[in-house]
C-alpha cells in the first residue's frame, strides 16, 4: 500500500478503507462531536428539523456540549441560548454537558475538551468552532464545521469530507526562553499567508515540536485555521500519551497513528527556531507579520491575556514571570480559559505569590473563565474593545471588529510579549524583562 500521512491514515481508518489520497471525497465515522452556546442552538434546530422533534442523537456519549462564548453577560438572547443547550442535554440524557452556574462549568471548549478526557490520538473530532483544530495536538484529526454539518453528524455519526493534502513544518533547534509556540505559529502564518494552507492539513514535526509541552503544542495547532488550514496535527509521543492517560477517566481505548515513512507532503519548510525573534501580527490580519524589533515602541491602550490560544497555564506562567514585581501602565485584562486554569492561577506560586496575586499586584483585572473579549461578544463582555483603541493580545484573530469595535486595532503576540508591553504601555521585546 502507498505511504500515507498521519491525517490520511486517520481518515482512511474512519472511512473503513485501507487507503485514501488527497482530493478524494469520503464518508467518515465521527468519534466526538463538540458544540457550544453560539452554534449549538442552530445545530439542534437543524437536527430536529431533519430527524424529527422526538429524534434521538446517534450516540449520547459521543456528543460534548460546552457553553463558553457568551456566559457572563446580562444579554437575554445569549442566556436563552444556554437554556436551549441545557434543555436539549436533559432531553437527550447527554452525559457530557458542562453547564453554566454549576460545578461542572468549564469555559473555553478547546481547552476543556482535553481536560475532560475527550481528546485521543487517532480519533476524529468535529466541532462547530473553527478552532476545533486545536485538538490535532493530540495526534487526532480535528476540524471545525457548521451547524448543518453538525446537525447531520448529530443524527448519523457520519459526514462527508475531502481528504486534504498535508504540508509539513519542521522545527529544528531549541526554543530560546524569550519565544513561545505563539511566535512559531505567527511566523508560519506570516510566511505562508492567511490562505497559505486553505484546504490543507498542517503537520508539525521536528525536535523543536517534540520538546514543547502539550499546551504549547495546542497553541501551534490552534492557529492553523488562521492560515486557512483544515487541520493541524502533531504525532503523539510519550508526552502526549502520558497526558491522555492522565485524563482518560472514561477509559476509552484508542490507537495512535503515525505518518508512514515516504509519505508525500505537498509542501515542506524547515525552521531553525533557535534563530527566530519575537513575532507579532499587526492589524488587521493574523498574517500581517512583523518582528517585535520592527514595531517596538508602538503606543498601546490595552493588553489582553486569555483565550484558547493564550489563556492556558503555560501562557500565564510566562506572563507572570515578566509581570512579577512590575505595574502595568495600560488596562490589562487576564482571562483564564477554563475553571481548571482559574484554580491553577489561585494555587500555583512563583516567588512565593500565586500567579493571580502577581497579576493583581501588577494592577491587572481578572476575568472569569470563558471566551470573553476574544471575539467581542455582547457590549458588556469583560475586556471588550468598545472604542477605537489599540490592544495587544494573546488571542488568535485581529480582523476588523473581532474584539469589539470595528476601528479598534489589535496586535497578536505571545504572552511574554503582551506582558512586557503591558508594563511599558508600548510594544516591548520580552527580552528586556527576562533576566
Amino acid at each position, binding site marked *: 500500500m502507498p505511504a500515507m500521512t498521519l491525517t490520511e491514515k486517520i481518515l482512511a481508518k474512519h472511512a473503513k478503507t485501507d487507503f485514501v489520497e488527497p482530493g478524494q*471525497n469520503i*464518508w467518515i465515522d465521527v468519534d466526538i462531536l463538540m458544540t457550544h452556546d*453560539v*452554534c449549538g*442552538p*442552530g445545530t*439542534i*434546530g*437543524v437536527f*430536529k*428539523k*431533519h430527524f424529527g422533534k422526538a429524534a434521538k442523537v446517534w450516540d449520547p456519549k459521543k456528543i460534548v456540549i460546552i457553553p463558553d*462564548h*457568551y456566559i457572563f453577560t446580562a*444579554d437575554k*438572547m*445569549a442566556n*436563552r*441560548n444556554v437554556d*436551549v443547550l441545557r434543555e436539549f442535554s436533559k432531553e437527550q440524557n447527554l452525559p457530557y454537558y458542562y453547564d453554566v452556574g454549576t460545578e461542572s462549568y468549564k469555559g473555553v471548549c478547546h481547552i476543556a475538551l482535553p481536560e475532560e478526557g475527550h481528546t485521543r490520538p487517532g480519533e476524529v473530532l468535529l*466541532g*462547530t*468552532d*473553527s478552532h*476545533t483544530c486545536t485538538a490535532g495536538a493530540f495526534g487526532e484529526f480535528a476540524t*471545525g*464545521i*457548521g*451547524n*448543518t*454539518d453538525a446537525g*447531520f453528524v448529530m443524527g*448519523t455519526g*457520519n459526514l*462527508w469530507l475531502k481528504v486534504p493534502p498535508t504540508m509539513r513544518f519542521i522545527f529544528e533547534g531549541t526554543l530560546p526562553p524569550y519565544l513561545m509556540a505563539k511566535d512559531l505559529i505567527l511566523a508560519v502564518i506570516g510566511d505562508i499567508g*492567511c*490562505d497559505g494552507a*486553505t*484546504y490543507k492539513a498542517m503537520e508539525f514535526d521536528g525536535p523543536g515540536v517534540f520538546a514543547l509541552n502539550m499546551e504549547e503544542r495546542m497553541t501551534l495547532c490552534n492557529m492553523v*485555521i488562521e492560515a*486557512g488550514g*483544515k487541520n493541524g496535527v502533531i504525532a503523539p509521543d510519550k508526552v502526549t500519551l502520558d497526558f491522555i492517560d492522565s485524563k482518560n477517566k472514561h477509559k476509552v481505548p484508542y490507537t495512535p497513528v503515525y505518518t508512514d515513512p515516504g509519505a508525500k507532503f505537498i509542501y515542506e519548510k524547515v525552521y531553525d527556531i533557535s534563530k527566530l525573534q519575537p513575532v507579532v501580527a499587526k492589524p488587521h*490580519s493574523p498574517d500581517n507579520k512583523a518582528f517585535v524589533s520592527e514595531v517596538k515602541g508602538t503606543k498601546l491602550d490595552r493588553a489582553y491575556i486569555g483565550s484558547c490560544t493564550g489563556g492556558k497555564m503555560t501562557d500565564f506562567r510566562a506572563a507572570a514571570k515578566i509581570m512579577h514585581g512590575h505595574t502595568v501602565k495600560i488596562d490589562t485584562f487576564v482571562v483564564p480559559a477554563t475553571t481548571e486554569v482559574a484554580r491553577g492561577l489561585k494555587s500555583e506560586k512563583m516567588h512565593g505569590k500565586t500567579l493571580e496575586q502577581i497579576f493583581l499586584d501588577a494592577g491587572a483585572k481578572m476575568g472569569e473563565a470563558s471566551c470573553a473579549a476574544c*471575539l*467581542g*461578544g*455582547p*457590549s458588556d463582555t469583560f475586556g471588550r474593545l468598545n472604542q477605537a483603541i489599540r490592544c495587544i493580545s494573546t488571542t488568535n*484573530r485581529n*480582523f*476588523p*471588529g*473581532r474584539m469589539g469595535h*470595528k*476601528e479598534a486595532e489589535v496586535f497578536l503576540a505571545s504572552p511574554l510579549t503582551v506582558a512586557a508591553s503591558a508594563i511599558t504601555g508600548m510594544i516591548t521585546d520580552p527580552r528586556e524583562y527576562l533576566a
Partner: protein
Amino acid sequence: MSKIPNEITGKVYVLGDNVDTDQIIPAEYLTFNPAIPEEYKQFGKYALSSVPPAQSGLPKGNIPFHTDDEFVSPYTFIVAGKNFGCGSSREHAPVALDAAGIKVVIAEFYARIFFRNSVNGGYLVPFECSERLCDKVCTGDELKLDVLNCKLHNLTTKEIYPLNPLGEIAPILNAGGIFAYAKQVGMLKS
C-alpha cells in the same frame, strides 16, 4: 429537480480580499438562533456590518450594503477577491448573506468552512473565477449569470467572464444541501 435556477440576474455588491466571517456577521449578533425563522431574518439586517467603510462597495467604497433598518439588500450577487469567508466556522455567515437576499457569491477562492457551509446548508451558490473580477466589476452593475454554461454577463459593461465549473459540489447544490444529497446517495434513509 434542480434547486439552482438556470439563470440569475440582479445587482452586484463588490468586496475585496480576505473578507472574514467577523466582517460578514459580527459576533455580537450571533445570539440570534438561525433555526428560528423570525431570528433568521435578523441576520440579513446585520450582514456585512463590520466591513470597514472604505472597503464597502468597491471600487469607490463607502457604499453601504443596505440602510441600517433594512433586512434585505438591493443586491443579488457579491463579487469578492481571495479567501472569502475566512475566520470562524459560524454558519451565520452564509445565513446572513442569504437572509439579505444574496443568491450567488463569486470569489477567486473561498475559505474552506464558509464554502462547505454555503453548499451543505444550501444557502447560496459559491462560484469561483480565475480572473480577479473584484477589479473589473463595479458595485451596482447589473449582472446575468448563465449557470449551466458558467458564464457571467455584465449587462452594464457588456463584458462576459467565464466562471469555473462547480464540479463536485454541483450535485449537493442541485439536491438543495447535504441532507437531500445524503438521501440521494443512500447515506440517509428517506
